[in-house]
């Protein structure tokens, strides 16, 4: 984000009702049974961009080179980003079990600009209203 401190991780929240999967006209998206992550079948994907529009957080994106949809697959259940964050001592990322997430996960699928706006007000007070 334009202002420092407003960097927002922009990742799939695994919505309980998976609007992206429903939106895909060619059935390129499916849900992994174990991890609940959305899996993209690159062979089938036609790069139409419908899943991006369907996602409440605009999370998927088309890969700049092969132009197919990209959605976090949780590294098969053991995400590298979480490990790196813990090693760095930031502890900003944790793996949480489903039972602790007793809240609608779609709430976390948000556009990064939207999150940054809220964060700005949190960090900078009134000034935050102007910065994003």
């Amino acid at each position: 984000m334009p202002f420092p401190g407003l960097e927002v991780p922009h990742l799939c929240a695994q919505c309980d009702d998976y609007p992206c999967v429903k939106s895909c006209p060619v059935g390129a998206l499916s849900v992994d049974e174990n991890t609940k992550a959305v899996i993209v079948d690159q062979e089938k994907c036609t790069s139409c961009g419908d899943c991006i529009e369907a996602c409440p957080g605009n999370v998927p994106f088309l890969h700049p080179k092969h132009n197919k949809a990209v959605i976090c697959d949780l590294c098969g259940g053991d995400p590298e980003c979480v490990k790196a964050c813990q090693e760095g001592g930031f502890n900003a990322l944790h793996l949480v079990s489903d039972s602790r997430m007793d809240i609608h996960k779609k709430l976390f699928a948000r556009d990064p600009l939207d999150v940054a706006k809220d964060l700005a007000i949190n960090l900078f007070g009134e000034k935050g209203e102007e910065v994003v």
Partner: protein
Amino acid sequence: MPRGYAGNYLEVDLSKENTRETSFDEATLEAYFGGRGLAAKILLDKLGKNWAEVDPLGPENVLTVLTGPMTGIYPGTRVCCSGKSPLSNSIVGSTVSSEFASELRFSGFDGLIIKGKANSPVYILVTDEGCELRDASHVWGMLGEETLKTLNAEVVNELESRKPKSGRLREPGLLYIGPAGENLVRTAAIISKLGHAAGYGGYGAVMGSKNLKAIAVKGRGPMPDVAAPETVKILLREVQRRLARTQTRIRFWGTAYGGYSIGAERSAEPIRNWQEEWHDEKRFGVPYFSTRFWVKRSCSDFNCIIGCMKLSCIKTGKWKGDITDTPDYELQAYLGTNFGIFAPEACIHLSSLIDNLGHSGINGANTMGFAAELYQRGILKKEDLGFELKWGDADAFDKLARLIAERKKVGNVLAEGTYRAAKKISEIKDVDVTPYAVHVKGIEVGAHGTRSGLDKNPISYAASTQGGDHMSTVRDGYNDMLIVFYDSSVNCWFCRDDLIWDFARAITGWEINKHKWCTDQGQRILTVEQATLLMGGPDVFWDPDKDFDNPPRFYEPLPTGPHKGKTTNKDLVERLKKGYYEAVGWDERGVPTTETLAKLGLKELEPTMKKMRK
């Protein structure tokens, strides 16, 4: 193509409005690596023949914005800005930590080489497709924050509309200048993000002289290939782990711990334009900043695990809404104690203002402190400034910063930087004010003194090719090449670790190591820089016998504190300087010798250097 490089550099001619891609052969890249080193090579090739005639603020000057083969891979991603400096009239490698560097690498380019002058204000937009010039008249004159917001939104909208329905884009990497750069204030910085600056060298003024408001870059491609990808992966994780363990102080406090420590413990902090170097004002210690103003304790630049940036915001009072990073030690000193200011709030306000105006917080603030001393001594008067300029008065320094950025009244003289301003004011006022000018070779000295003997060594600045630059200081002619490496690789010095050499080999595949760098490549880069310093011109020619020395103030005894009475020993400076020159292969006045030039393959410099020798 050698590994670690995209291999493509963009050459932009702003006068002709054309751009083309260029590349360098493997031998050149191995010898000069990237960033500061490669800049020295490019500038020598392009401007070396008539160096003394090149006006740093003329269209003929070349501005380089370069990354290195390790940028974006090794932790601490920086970009190095260089050119013929309007302050020292030589080459200064000025780096800034920013996502600009990683975005540039993602876009498939290693750097930009910019010459000429645009007819009207423009900005350069670099994407995976190449580079284009875009109108910047609507942002010309804007303060930093506004420029940043406007251009970020504009570029994102433009790129998203070119490729609709392909997902959200993160904002571009941006280098820009504020009003100070536009008005050719010689100390002006190139700013990135909010308040990150390539401060030394005055390259903000060089951008301004080219009518170039900003460079925006958005890359979406992969990083260049490396020679040993698996090794790099392991090394990266290991260096990150090590930095998390070793750099705890900077991780926790940033460099802000210095605001009290360096003055109180080491007596090496500029106070009232270096009239003193000691204070025991605890309110200027980091807890007073952190508990009241830090709204975020860890902000990093791309790929950096340290996160030395702390985010400050003033939420109440007359300066409500001022945001700045930390301020770090340098700015706590230069925009605090140096002005006789010991209130955290005022320091944060001035930091935010300085960045918004596009001043360099060190160089510009040094000139401002110099002006305040002249006011104290009755040499500058209220009518010169339009207001009173008393130590500790933040509002007065606020006005002074604007006065200089706009080049109004005496600000027009001060905008020339401390060295040039001192010469002019001496003429106008008919008193010698040069003893109060704390600069070395035209470059205002960083906030670390030499007098107490507990901080920088006596020849840190006096023998340095970059004068007062506190990052690239002189040590023994061997270890000081390390910072030259980090500036050339281009990575953040705070992320330093011995594994960098293994890293360099794994990325490039070249047989590169510390000893070779310190005795060959590093020496070559410094020698080119020294040669340009000796050539100087057109308005300033340095005299190695007189000018390669500390400022007069550094030979005055410290007036206060536990180290009262101590000062820099002039004889020691002379002796150390000779030793250093010998170590790097220069004669006893600092002119590279015939043998050194031959050894380093810089024979083309021999005719000019010959004239400099006695």
